[in-house]
């Protein structure tokens, strides 16, 4: 009964979505009779999607095995959190979550947005309806989450153990919030293109959505990276896996959009470019959704192959991107040129930022899609891995960091090169000192890491420079946001460079009682014992680690076997010190009784994720600051 109610709610939502689109089309076409129903319909639609999603969660928590999806992905043996999270740990459930977030975001636009011109707003909601309809159709015709199963099986199959992790339970929702936030930005761009109303007011309406989406993408990427690091047990934190790229590409586009929309909001410049970026950013969300959800990939994240779904998503992707580009092409000529600026100005710096981010995005996109396209067209298989991405995108990223350091020190519209040089000098000097100091202390460091560390030092100083001689209490919150976010990037880069250059690694076959030295630690292999948990059994090693004369630490890496579904995983044991992490993995037992142990000392590796968290916090500060200021006074002062 509950499943049928959920399905009915979905159909009703789809019908309302169609009504929303028709009402908007009539209004924009000149017949305003239905204009009044657009906002209420958007809200109703959100309520129906939320109801359907809530019912699916209920089915999962109750483990209703008569629903095929629940049988495939749930198990009554699992703790409540994972039964709850299993709702979106699968294809259909996660697509329903997509539609729900989309619906709720549309309702939020309908309820909260008051500053934008009414016709543009309605056209925006029309854009939301077009996106919504495609995904409703996808759910109802190709991925019905509420399909029944006859006869009812006695027990469910369970969730992939790799995904049974509290961090990962909330990883997909975070990314989806980011994807959908970009869809709202896209709808704003469509709305503005339809009514030709491209200006600061449009930019200010769109900015909170871009910022919000960007914060969630940042969080999602950071959390996903840490998950891969501790859960997979390979010691790496980024693998250039297509699924990782699927979240990185929208982030790169959103970062560019975030900066160009600021130019549009404050200086009324970069109009057409901002519209284009909004289209690109949403396209990357669609590409990401396609990569993850169509099953075209070979990776730990790969879900079941189902060509029907893949083609459906691909068709949606081409429809939206093609339609938006066609609209852009038809209308861009009528978008008046925005305000001009000098080649040395804040605007020009942001243009450079945008061009570099777009170039990096292009490189990641080519590396991610080329193998797929090549295989689909010629059957030739190839894999594109870290060497490609690092050589192609690395140099551009370093230039980007240098520009990022100078950007906030530039004045809007026009700047004096001499004064700029004076402002940048301290950061440049620090970068140079860091370069020399690192090269002297670690002569064998790789060039990428060396430059990374030097630039991180310079960027860190340049990031806080905008606070220099300012009354810190009266500094606007969004300036703080920028400072914290830029500083976060510096921190993260420093972590990446330290990890890639100074990591110490030991792979040994050890007998119980043996001691192995790794980095500053002496690790004694004390014992191996069997142990068990609610859904697994394991062999657990006891490692006693000691640094100099310090306290003895106990680490317990495990080799686990899950029952439902039967899977073997290795659980890392990590000790976090102030200056890095000791990372341990237990491997197999050799025939002669020795155990394989893999140990890493990773200096300052935690900075990578601390930096990511700072970037997200900076984004949140900026968002709060903008919303607060927008509430207080409609006219924004120059930032």
């Amino acid at each position, binding site marked *: 009964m509950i499943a049928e109610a959920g399905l009915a709610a979905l159909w009703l939502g789809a019908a309302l979505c169609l009504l929303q689109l028709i009402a908007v089309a009539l209004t924009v076409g000149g017949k305003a009779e239905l204009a009044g129903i657009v906002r209420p319909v958007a809200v109703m639609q959100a309520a129906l999607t939320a109801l359907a999603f809530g019912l699916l969660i209920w089915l999962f928590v109750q483990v209703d095995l008569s629903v095929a999806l629940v049988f495939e992905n749930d198990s009554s043996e699992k703790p409540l959190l994972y039964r709850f999270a299993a709702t979106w740990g699968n294809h259909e459930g996660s697509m329903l979550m997509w539609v729900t977030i989309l619906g709720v975001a549309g309702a939020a636009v309908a309820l909260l947005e008051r500053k934008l011109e009414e016709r543009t707003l309605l056209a925006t909601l029309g854009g939301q309806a077009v996106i919504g309809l495609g995904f409703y159709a996808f759910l109802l015709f190709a991925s019905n989450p509420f399909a029944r199963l006859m006869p009812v099986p006695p027990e469910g199959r369970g969730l992939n153990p790799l995904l049974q992790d509290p961090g990962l339970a909330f990883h997909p929702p975070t990314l989806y919030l980011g994807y959908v936030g970009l869809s709202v930005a896209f709808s704003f761009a469509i709305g503005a293109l339809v009514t030709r109303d491209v200006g600061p007011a449009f930019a200010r309406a769109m900015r909170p959505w871009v910022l919000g989406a960007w914060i969630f993408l940042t969080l999602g990427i950071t959390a996903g990276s840490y998950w891969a690091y501790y859960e*997979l047990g*390979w*010691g*790496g934190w980024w693998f250039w896996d297509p699924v990782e790229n699927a979240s990185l590409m929208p982030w790169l586009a959103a970062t560019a959009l975030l900066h160009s929309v600021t130019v549009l909001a404050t200086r009324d410049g970069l109009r*057409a*470019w901002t519209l284009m970026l909004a289209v690109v950013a949403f396209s990357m969300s669609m590409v990401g959704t396609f990569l993850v959800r169509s*099953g*075209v*990939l*070979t*990776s*730990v994240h*790969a*879900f*079941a*192959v189902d060509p029907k779904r893949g083609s459906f998503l691909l068709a949606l992707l081409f429809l939206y991107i093609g339609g938006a580009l066609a609209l852009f092409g038809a209308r861009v000529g009528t978008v008046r040129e925005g305000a001009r600026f000098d*080649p040395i100005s804040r605007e020009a710096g942001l*243009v450079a930022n945008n*061009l*570099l981010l*777009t*170039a*990096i995005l*292009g*490189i990641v996109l*080519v*590396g991610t899609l*080329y193998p797929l396209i090549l*295989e689909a067209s010629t059957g*030739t*298989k*190839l*894999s*594109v*891995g870290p*060497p*490609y991405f690092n*050589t*192609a*995108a690395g*140099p*551009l990223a370093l230039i980007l960091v240098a520009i990022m350091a100078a950007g906030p020190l530039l004045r809007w519209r026009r700047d004096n090169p001499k004064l700029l040089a004076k402002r940048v000098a301290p950061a440049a000097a620090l970068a140079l000192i860091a370069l020399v100091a690192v090269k002297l202390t670690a002569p064998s460091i790789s060039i990428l890491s060396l430059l990374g560390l030097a630039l991180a030092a310079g960027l860190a100083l340049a990031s806080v420079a905008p606070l220099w001689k300012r009354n810190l209490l009266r500094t606007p919150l969004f300036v703080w946001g920028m400072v914290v976010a830029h500083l976060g990037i510096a921190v993260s880069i420093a972590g990446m460079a330290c990890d890639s250059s100074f990591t110490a*690694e030991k*792979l040994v*076959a050890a007998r119980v009682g043996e001691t192995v030295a790794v980095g500053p630690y002496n690790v004694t292999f004390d014992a191996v014992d069997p142990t068990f948990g609610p859904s697994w059994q394991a062999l657990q090693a006891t490692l006693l680690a000691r640094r100099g004369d310090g306290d003895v630490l106990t680490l317990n890496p495990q*080799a686990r076997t899950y029952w439902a*579904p*039967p*899977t*073997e*995983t*290795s659980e890392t044991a990590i000790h976090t010190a102030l200056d890095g992490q000791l990372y341990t*993995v237990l*491997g*197999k037992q*050799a*025939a002669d009784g*020795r155990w*394989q142990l*893999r140990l890493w000392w990773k200096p300052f590796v935690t900075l990578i994720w601390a930096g990511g968290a700072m970037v997200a916090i900076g984004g949140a500060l900026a968002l709060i600051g903008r919303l607060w200021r927008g509430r207080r006074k409609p006219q924004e002062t120059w930032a």
Partner: protein
Amino acid sequence: MKAKNQRLTLALLAVVAIIVAALLALSALKDQAAYFYTPSDVAKDRVQPGTAVRLGGMVQKGSLKRLPDGVTITFMVTDNAASLPVRFKGIVPALFREGSGVVADGKFDAGGQFVAETILAKHDERYMPPEVAKNLDGSAMHKSESLKK
């Protein structure tokens, strides 16, 4: 900047940026992409030592050997038509065993032995990487990286 052509300049800059990105991407792809081979493919056309290769097949029964250091293994990868020796130093994925599907990323050394840097092994039924599905009855992969160096 002369006010007249600012839009044009920006558009040109964007085009230049995209061309530079494309050139960087293409040159890196040419040097860094690893092609997928089965042992039969390798037997047919010689692979230069040092080229990054992704080798796929099955772990031949009875071929898995552990070297005395306890962390290096050697085995034969076979596609039932041809087979090749592989060496790997590291912790193999949990599902790696004789008779199971395997994909190894690595390079051939001068002596014709394949030195794997990462090993992917058969996962469970529900994950189907296209590569393995086409060449084997296998499915998704569990990965292990070898000691870099």
